[in-house]
């Protein structure tokens, strides 16, 4: 995965009607420490707001957090909207408790496959640390 130019900037938020935001905070802090520009949108963020923010800050990636189990429903269509908005080469990640905890444990490959099917570049289980998230993006951007 190679982007035209790297701007070291990310959008972070919790999608849908999901009010959890602690994971987002932790990510915000980690990415700022790694010298990224972060637009942290908090919780209950509609898809369109992720896109608006990404356009304005010229983001390399959108990091979607979903904790309450309805991630797939909330995330569907985000990739298409990004494409429509001219964000052709933006990287999309999703993480948190992206499905029911039992599902995550037993059917991870299937969960991952379905998110990739709707256009996400990477899917992270809730065991992912912030440092791992930062490292993954750096790798994808080909930096540091």
């Amino acid at each position, binding site marked *: 995965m190679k982007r035209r130019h790297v701007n070291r900037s990310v959008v972070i938020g919790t999608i849908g*009607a999901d009010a959890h935001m602690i994971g987002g905070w932790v990510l915000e802090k980690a990415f700022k420490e790694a010298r990224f520009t972060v637009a942290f949108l908090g919780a*209950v963020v509609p898809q369109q707001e992720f896109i608006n923010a990404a*356009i304005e*800050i010229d983001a390399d990636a959108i990091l979607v957090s979903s904790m309450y189990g309805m991630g797939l429903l909330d995330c569907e269509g985000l990739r298409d909207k990004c494409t429509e908005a001219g964000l052709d080469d933006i990287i999309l990640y999703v993480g948190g408790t992206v499905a029911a905890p039992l599902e995550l444990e037993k059917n991870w490959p299937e969960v991952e496959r379905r998110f990739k099917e709707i256009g996400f570049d990477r899917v992270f289980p809730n065991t992912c640390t912030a440092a791992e998230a930062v490292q993954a993006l750096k790798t994808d951007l080909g930096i540091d």
Partner: protein
Amino acid sequence: MSIYLLVDFGSTYTKILAVDVSNEVILGRAQAPTTIDTDVTIGLNRALSELVDTCGLDLRQVEGKYASSSAAGGLKMAAIGLVPELTLEAARRACLGAGAKVVCSYGFEIDSDIVREIEAARCDIILLCGGTDGGDKRVITHNARMLAHSEIACPILVAGNRVVSDAVRDTLERHGKKVYRTSNVLPSLDMVEVEPAQALIREIFIAHITHAKGLDKAADFIGGPIIPTPKATLQAATLLAQGTVEEPGIGSLLVVEVGGATTNIHSVADQSPVTPQTVIRGLPESPVKRTVEGDLGIRYNAPTIYDFIGRDAFLARLRDLYPALDDPSGDDQRFDPDEHIEYLSKNVGHVPTTELGLNADIVLAESAASIAVERHAGTVRQEFSVVGEILVQHGKNLLEVENLIGTGGIFRYGLRPERILSSALFNPEKPWSLKPRNPKTLIDRMYMLYGIGLLAEHFPAPALRIAKKYLTETDLGS
């Protein structure tokens, strides 16, 4: 005695207030039609002689003069940003808070049609934004290029992505544009910083626009700069709410200003969520906020308000206020609302003298205030999901605002100004609209708020005490 004259060159009337700053009293007020098309000092002199006649003022005793203006269309600006809800919204707020009217606004890349629209709009200043600092550079660069190749002659204020600000300025200057540059109105998504842009807008207004609007002679008379009227009112609102070190303010407030062409709403209140669990979305709100509704005014725009209400509802409300409308023995039988509204829009200086005319104004002003406050105030909606309900709030929560103030001609000459203020209140039928629930209500019977704002720059504490003294507390009844 230390007498100061506070002049407002309004779109219709030139108003003067004479105040004694050392004794903190208003000595008198006078007005005459604004004569901007010929020589603005003609109207000014008429108002002055009325002032001398009515309050026996000796002009030689005057120690200073301050002035504002909204004549010749006021300060007209175009706002350009990237995403409509983000940098464009921040740009619009910058203009409004500087006392401007945003006559056109555009997000994303502008094209040649838009450039022609901007040229035709004859703006006084264009505010060019786009991209957070370090964010998008492409769109503001493109838009600067489009403006550079246009016929636009007004000053362009660049307040976008810092990284390309110099390049954007160079592009415009190379094509002979007058360019000003300041820091980004939205340096990052969680920070709206409109003050530097607003300070520059004020400077540009003083440096270029006073002249362009034919106000040179007025500025000579005043002996100092003239600022946009809405800016003066906003300064008054801020002073009144926040106070000074020596004189406490009256707390959070909402000012409703119903005019002939527009309705202005000013609020000074800290942003707070409706409940501690409420999620707030959208750009951060600043404590001081102004919105202006260019389609709501009770003279020039009486037809728009009338269209909003509808003929039948208009008559019903009028009848409610003025039952004599149907009196078979009265002369009001022939009243045709269509004709009346048409008359108002063509005679913008009209001051009603009949019961009927006064009441018709109230119906118009009520609707203008209600709609304008609804657009100014934030909203809250309940989101239902499988995991229960959450409240999501957009914009400013004004439910707990402590004071509601009415200003403008209608609050001075009009009947039952409290009706107009009532329409600015929270309405249980529209619980999502976060209008004030139970404020103290005050009326600016002297039409002095603009003057308080002018005085605030030089004598804040006396200005504040005068405002407190002359605002009339009123009971909205039920």
